[in-house]
């Protein structure tokens, strides 16, 4: 799924949102948004799935502007976008299987959707199980989500997004709750899964070094503006460091 930002801005009134962001992301590309807190990473991600409308400029996803779509059209667009939220957004007192299946119901008819939730069929469960196996939590299929560890829950959220069969994956700070070794593992997993399915992947990250090591293209954001946008091997240390430099402080 292709994405483009054309002078997109978000004005929160007072604080800085997003200012004049222009960028193109090709289908199948893997991109990390990096920058300090409040730089506009989450706002950019939310504009892609239509959770936030640009106050000026355009955001085009797969040839359509999410903010201009009718409700039903927006839902259709969203069924092709897998989102892994920072808070995961899982239902803690439902089983892993039901959580994963729930994410894919947007494509089904009303009746088929209810049937899948109440009595999931065998091929469906097998497909979910295969996804979970791929993520290393196949044995948790029928466990309640609130009985899993934080890392396992995150994998459930990834499995839910993948089970949608998305052509675009979005992940907002997916590593924020993980220790450094785990972080690298999960980030590599994201990149790998996107590569396997050919989906475009856009994630927001805090950790610049990790992003540079694992993600081919980095977009640095600062105060809502694009600070740099380049292939990670071409980015120098100085450029990366300047992203976090406090305004007015001696460089």
């Amino acid at each position: 799924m292709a994405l483009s930002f054309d002078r997109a801005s978000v004005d929160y009134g007072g604080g800085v949102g997003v200012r004049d962001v222009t960028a193109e992301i090709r289908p199948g590309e893997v991109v990390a948004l990096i920058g300090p807190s409040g730089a506009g990473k989450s706002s950019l991600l939310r504009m892609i799935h239509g959770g936030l409308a640009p106050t000026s400029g355009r955001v085009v996803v797969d040839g359509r502007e999410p903010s201009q779509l009718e409700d039903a059209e927006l839902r259709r667009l969203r069924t092709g976008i897998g989102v892994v939220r920072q808070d995961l957004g899982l239902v803690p007192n439902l089983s892993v299987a039901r959580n994963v299946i729930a994410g894919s119901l947007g494509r089904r008819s009303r009746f088929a959707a209810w049937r899948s939730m109440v009595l999931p069929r065998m091929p469906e469960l097998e497909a979910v199980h295969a996804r979970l196996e791929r993520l290393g939590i196949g044995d948790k299929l029928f466990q309640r989500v609130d009985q899993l560890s934080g890392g396992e829950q995150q994998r459930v959220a990834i499995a839910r997004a993948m089970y949608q069969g998305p052509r675009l994956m979005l992940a907002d700070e997916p590593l924020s709750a993980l220790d450094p070794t785990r972080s690298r593992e999960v980030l590599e997993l994201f990149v790998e899964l996107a590569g396997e399915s050919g989906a475009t992947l856009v994630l927001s990250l805090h950790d610049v070094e990790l992003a540079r090591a694992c993600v081919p293209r980095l977009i640095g954001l600062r105060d809502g503006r694009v600070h740099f946008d380049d292939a990670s091997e071409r980015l120098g240390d100085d450029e990366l460091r300047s992203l976090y430099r406090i305004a007015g402080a001696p460089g």
Partner: protein
Amino acid sequence: MNDLRRPFPLGPRGRLLVAFAFAGALSYWFLGLSLSGLLPARGAGDQLGAFFGAALHPAVDYEASWVPEGAPPFLSNVGRAMLETLLLAAAAMSFAILLSIPLALWTSTSFWQRQSRGAAGIARKSKLGRALLPFVRLVIACMRSVHELLWAVVLLAAFGDHHFLAVLAIAIPFAGTLAKVYSEMLDEAPTDSSEALAEAGLAPGFCFALGRLPRALPDMTAYTFYRFECAVRSSAVMGFFGFPTIGYYLKLSYENLYYREVWTWLYALIVLVLVFEAWSARLRRRWVAR
């Protein structure tokens, strides 16, 4: 510029507390309350002693000097009344829960949200929802504002003495309360999971049923158990209108000044509530808090 000065003389919270204290003092004075009213009148001390003395010796048999032939043993009456009390409460609660579910859904704002866009708070309500919501809220307020004892009076006056009326008298106000609290729990449930489902392209009805409802369900279950306990007490009191629950026998014993029997009935009610409480706590541990 932010005003950093301390509000003088009191902030809004402080003013509210002072207002409550003042209202309390005013009502105390207005009703002519005095703690000396609690002291027994002259000569009533004996009766007081007899009543509380009986607490240590609750009756295990009839206190009356003459009991008609073939009357069931006293304790079997106690057991039967406890069972009747529990059954009436269970009937009323099942009726109240059935009645409250549609009302709760219709009065919760989140149920009527029909837009996938935007944060949960600012999503638009459907037209039908906007039309129906105030009306259903009014109905619920009417059901709640009349106490179950008053409902019993009204229903008895209208339809005469029938077991189902006692069930209805409890079920109506309880359904109103359940509906109000359920709808608030639904509206205040965490929104992250329903938002996540909306972001995956699910229709608002599914986001509500799969994302929001399960989040509110543990609290709703716990509250339902608490209301069941309230229903047990109300069902006991329904005996005052002649339904054969604990209250019926309590009233008879009290009118005959059989204080030891009165205590037996009070203890029976306490035991009933405690046993129910223990049972429901066990169920909740198993279902809700994992």
